[in-house]
């Protein structure tokens, strides 16, 4: 079996790096926590790994917009390597703030030009910590293969997917993502006003998954509130899918 190597980003206000690394370790992968400055000092570092994780947190305090400054920081320091990494079939997971960073980097866009979507304040304009049920539709996403439903904790203030433009434009953007099989995850209930209850997206390659709820925080049965019938096997499958994919394809 090939040793799957995972780089988990940390620092600058990221705060879920330990549990994110642990998720891969419990499946036998080698997960290393690297601080943003360590990657920037050596941009090619990423090519030593098969998987990149941008965990949740409040990067740069999320003072302007969530993930905005981290996205700029990466764009102006390691953008080339990041694009290269995707071209070389690397996998990327962005959870919560990590999803917001990927969103602001424009990873989920299919055309050049102005961004067509963003993650905006929840409809309530409030942070909320609550477990949610999610369903993964058939999509091109490597990560959510064979996953139907998952219960996960959602802990965010800016998780509402919105599209740019008029109602019609928005529907067009949504349909395009949908037709491209890029919608990786839905909430089963409307928890934050997200367009069509989208909880997670994949990019055009299917290698990148960005999602708001936290699969890395649902890997022990004792973390689950009682009402939830799902168990940790499903979120664990998400990490396993990535590891299996690397072992099969890389």
């Amino acid at each position, binding site marked *: 079996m090939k040793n799957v190597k995972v780089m988990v980003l940390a620092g600058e*206000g990221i705060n879920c790096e330990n549990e994110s690394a*642990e998720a891969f370790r419990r499946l036998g992968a080698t997960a290393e926590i690297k601080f943003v400055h360590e990657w920037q000092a050596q941009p090619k570092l990423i090519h030593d790994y098969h998987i990149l994780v941008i965990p949740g947190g409040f990067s740069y*305090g999320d003072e*302007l917009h969530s993930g905005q400054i981290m996205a700029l920081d990466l764009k102006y320091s390691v953008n080339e390597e990041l694009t290269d990494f995707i071209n070389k079939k690397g996998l990327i997971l962005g959870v919560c703030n990590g999803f917001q960073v990927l969103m602001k980097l424009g990873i989920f866009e299919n055309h050049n030009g102005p961004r067509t979507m963003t993650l905006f304040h929840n409809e309530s304009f409030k*942070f909320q910590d609550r477990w949610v049920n999610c369903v993964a539709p058939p999509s091109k996403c490597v990560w959510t293969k064979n996953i139907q439903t998952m219960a996960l904790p959602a802990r965010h203030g800016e998780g509402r997917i919105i599209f740019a433009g008029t109602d019609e434009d928005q529907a067009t953007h949504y349909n395009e993502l949908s037709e491209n099989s890029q919608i990786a995850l839905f909430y089963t209930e409307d928890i934050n006003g997200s367009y069509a209850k989208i909880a997670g997206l994949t990019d055009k390659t299917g290698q990148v998954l960005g999602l708001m709820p936290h699969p890395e925080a649902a890997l022990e049965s004792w973390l689950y509130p009682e009402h939830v019938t799902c168990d940790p096997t499903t979120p664990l499958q998400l990490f396993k899918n990535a590891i299996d994919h690397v072992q099969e394809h890389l």
Partner: protein
Amino acid sequence: MKKIVIMASGNGSNAEEIIKASLDAPFKVSAVICDVPGAGVMAKAQKLGIKTIIIEKTKDQKSHEDKILKTLHDLNFDLVVLAGFRRLLSSNFIASFPVNSIINIHPSILPAYPGLNSYERAFKDGVKSSGVTIHYVDEGVDTGEIIEQHHFERKDNDTLETFTARGLELEHKNFCKVIQTVLFQKRLQRVEIYPVKLALIQNPEIVVGRAFWIETKGPCAQLLKLTSEVLIDPVVEKAFLHQDNTLTDHLSSLNLKGLASVEVAFLPGVTDNTATSAGMALIKHPILRGSEVSVHSGNIYFQKNKTVSDLSKEAYLKLANPWLHQVLVQDSKQFNKPQRFKTNPKFEVKLSSQEIKTYDLEVSDDALMGLSKENLWALNIEELHFIRQFYRSSKRSPTDVEMEVIAQTWSEHCKHKIFAADIEHTDHEGTRKIKSIFKTFIKGATTKIVNDRKIDWTRSVFTDNAGIVRWDKKLDVCIKVETHNSPSALDPYGGSLTGILGVNRDILGCGTGALPIANTDVFCLPPEGADADGLWPSELHGPRRLLEGVHKGVQDGGNKSGIPTVNGAFHYHLSYAGKPLVYCGTVGVLPHSINGIESHEKNQKPQDLVVMVGGRIGKDGIHGATFSSEELKEGTPSTVVQIGDPLTQKRMTDFIIRARDLGLYSSITDNGAGGLSSSVGEMCQLTGGARIDLALAPVKYAGLAPFELMISESQERMTCAVPKDKWAAFSKLAHDFKVEATALGEFTNDGNLTVYYNEKKVGELPLNFLHEDLPPMQLKSQWDPNHRRSNWKDEPQKLKAASLKEKALKLLASPNIRSHEKWVRQYDHEVKAATVLKPFSPKGAPSDAGVIAMKPHGGGEHNGIVISSGLAPQVSLQDTKMMAMYSIDEAVRNAVVTGADPERMVLIDNFCWPDPLPGPRNPDYAHKLAELVRCNEGLYEMATVLGMPFVSGKDSMKNDAIVKFQGKETKISVLPTLLVTCMGHIDDIKTVVKTSYGDGQDLWILGGTEELNPYTLSTLVEGYKKPWSSVAPEKLIERYRAYHQCIKKNLIRGAHDVSEGGAVVAFLEMAMHSGLGFDLDLKDESQLFGEGMGMIVFAALKSDQARIKAELKDARLIGTVRKDSCVKFAGEEMTVTDALNAYRGGNL
């Protein structure tokens, strides 16, 4: 490198000069734009290797300018230079750039001869002298701000040619010089950001835009492009220059036309995290990469149906805080003026004198007290005499640095003088002498318990920043709870934010440096709506603002630091209006040892460097320690109010833990109250001295006096002792983590704390004098059996009568019972993926405690920490001794109910008291001191019998405010309040007991057979006044041990403590977990609603009845869980939904 774009139409002599000069100047010409094909300037520029762009002039000026703008957008430049550009630029074009981004040279002394052919017209008019003007371009004809003018005299024999030539010479000589100067002059420029559409606005009644003032070295002509790519999310926002004509149209599209606006911005020197982040982001963009940028931010509110005068009045009540903010109110006319900010605002902080003052203490007592008051030393006359004696014998006068160090070190906040005092105490039980409440009762209890029970798992108690306990085979756990009452009274948000970040630093500075893993927060506030009658002292924030502020502070502090908030409480009473109580707690973990060193030890050695790590020093938080040792009154200095910066602290935490594991420092502590004075002053006790130079400390801005550097409480700082051979590595690591680390001096063993400023000695204090010699205060306390507390304002009317069902629902909706789930879910309570028991169940049942698993933190596979709290200020109205017993019982019971082992529990005490010292406005001080003594007696008795040691604690002794209320000076003092936090060990987190039950289970009550007090009901309905009674602690511990055995035997299916509202409320809260109702066989009102000590309700299987009876002697079977949602008791009927609606009701 600075860059310019030249626009020209002619033969280009000026352009040529500029290009030539730029070859040796610190700026470059990015391109020349020319609107006349074949103009001379093209060839000249091309010859010099400069990019040229032709945009041919067309009739339609707008389309021509749009083409130029489009070209400019893709170029990179700081300034546009017009060098003979022959078309007047439209106001639209000019407004596309920040004010004064375009520069021109004009061949006359403006305002004479504006327009074309100026030399010729001046020459023909026969002027005696003429010249050139270099000016900024505005929409007028050569009317922009003049930068420089240069004259020349006309000579008698001048022809137009020689006249013009002389002018040109001046042009060539000066234009380039001025361009260079302008490119490096400080600029303050402004952008405003608005939502793209109304649908994205939270509250259409109050629309918010954002404003940024951006200070750069030199103009930034592409500011709009820059901010559009950096500061906004283009899907939802659009950026504007404030003078932009299209801004008005945009505001109309948001329905804001004609509305007045309020801009709220931070005062100079106040931490502005949005601005700091914006600055960090801007310098990542290529346009400003590597530049110095300083940013100030503000929010712009537009409010419907409000006039300028309404807004001016209301701004400080709702949107801004005069301690922190400045406010600019404008009506729509002022707002729409193109030159809205003709003069820029100033953001400088007032400078302090750098001179060292000395004080003459050989003056009268009145004069001494005057000095103390004036300088906010908060020293009393005995202390001042003691200081004078010291300086007499040293034959010199104290410096300001020394006096401030002494004042901080001896402040009640830092030295806990009341808890250390000799007290002659008298109450109805007689008179006794107490040498230090702390040593006698708190430390005394712990020592006794540790000895009696032969406890070997306490590691460090009362000596460090936090108590440290051995937890399992891998980890030690430390815990600390702090209060941040005075700062929260002034700014609720800043107060609680710095409170939580501050206690996080206590943990980070505990032992060799512990990692925070969980937060707790308890707020004591005035009830919401208490100001609904419009009667509220103008000096105080209203209840809603206090609640929202302290809530947001804890939310940001916890969430942004990645620390889960796992437990807490909201408690309401009118007495908390003057100083709200904001308790912030943190739990941390430490490996047993790191690099072979026991992790609870401090190992600083003489010659280790004194290193300050983290944020810079500003004027924020000067005199925090001494200020909080006084009542809140007029004249409080604004510097005590601070905002925290979670990002800086998070970076510092990441760095510290890494540095700890690499063994790069020998000791660490936090910078909290008293700043460097306290951190260095305390750390150097272990080596026997320290020597620092304050001038080395990094500052937020220039102009701090040496004493300010010494005592500033600027946040996000730690002090480390770094061995000299580790300094290079320490410093390099800090740099990598973008954390500032500065060596200020070194630890010594000469017995002194010695302070220099620029190598000049400004203070030298023997540690003995500073820390040990001051004799304890001599106090007398006198219990007054007739003492009554009355509220400073009337309480709401009580109901005359109500049915039992109405009473139950009223109770559920009452301030101290109703659900705060909506607020609590805004705290991330499960980041780090270790929170086993969350504050609320999915359907809204409240938990009794927070439970954290140790495995994710590197601890044992199965065990966990149970964190709970208890407070009972309402009992203090009867007796503070009983209050202590109630507080401890509640905290302990919450932990026991949840499954913690009563044999492995530790306690943390936090006293918040009204001032118990003599003073002009304090006639009943002796009673309040007696209350403190009695409270501690109760605490000692309870803790020693329960066998639960105190490992950490804190006291806050001046929770009073002097305000004007209804024309009278009014003192608002908190009820004596003791918060007890309990930390218990749970062997297996899978045995956690929740506030829940299942279909068909039996419902039991444990305890509650003594006389109960329906206290909460008595605050709502008339006629229930009853005394509190206590249960012997021996009985309680026996009960808790037996209950714990039942959990171990898997007999308990769900449980809840009985507190406010009594048994019915407890069962109803349990019902919320599943929605299933119950039948309850309780009829007596005191049994239904009565409150007391030691009561637990729990659910168990019917088949376990006999076993439970055998295990729990004082348990009574009193009900059954139903299969539907119906609730029946004492002939009343309701549904769980009714209960949940009441519980979640109101506008919370």
